[in-house]
């Protein structure tokens, strides 16, 4: 079946512009995560959606970052007034995780964001 997809795969933007990154999770997966991976670094948790519950936004680095998930499926991560330090790969993952937890995450290929 189809895996997690992300678009665009690469995005170059000028400092100060807004960008939107899209994630299509695996059908039926209730949980959706966004991570940021800077060059040569590990994964930094940004935000987590679980079903219709309020998202866990505890990882968002500033109020320039926001995300939404429409209809419990597609998610959009928006970065306003981009800065050079926002340059990174943004990874999306989904899982079957429900209240029981414990299900592995399936990752998309990521969006490489470059802010010039």
């Amino acid at each position, binding site marked *: 079946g189809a895996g997690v997809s992300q678009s665009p795969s690469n995005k170059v933007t000028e400092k100060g512009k807004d960008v939107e990154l899209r994630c299509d999770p695996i059908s039926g997966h209730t*949980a959706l*995560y966004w*991570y940021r991976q800077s060059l040569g*670094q*590990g*994964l930094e*948790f940004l935000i*987590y959606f*679980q079903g219709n519950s309020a998202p*866990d936004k505890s990882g968002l680095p500033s109020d320039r970052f926001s995300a939404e998930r429409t209809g419990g499926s597609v998610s959009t991560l928006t970065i306003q007034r981009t800065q050079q330090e926002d340059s990174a*790969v943004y*990874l999306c*993952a989904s*899982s079957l*995780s429900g*209240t*029981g*937890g*414990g299900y*592995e*995450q*399936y*990752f998309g*290929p*990521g969006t*490489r964001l470059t802010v010039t």
Partner: protein
Amino acid sequence: AQTVTQSQPEMSVQEAETVTLSCTYDTSESNYYLFWYKQPPSRQMILVIRQEAYKQQNATENRFSVNFQKAAKSFSLKISDSQLGDTAMYFCAFMKHPGNQFYFGTGTSLTVIP
């Protein structure tokens, strides 16, 4: 808070040899899951192996196996008969149960030398 530590930023291994990647974690939780993910140069993160903390038996998936030492909070990954396609970044991850947030280590870059 949970922390995951991978103390080996880079490792290399000869093709067909065996290599072990280290991972330690810190938690006060008694029930959790541990994972190893592989990220090749293509950037796609792929699950390698999963271990439930309540299971004493170490997980095995073909050439990949883990050494899970719960008391020591250690979760190492052993790759046997290393292949060129194993060249990748390997991330150790922790998830408490019940719960849904993952905590990742900083990764180990593994190079398999022909």
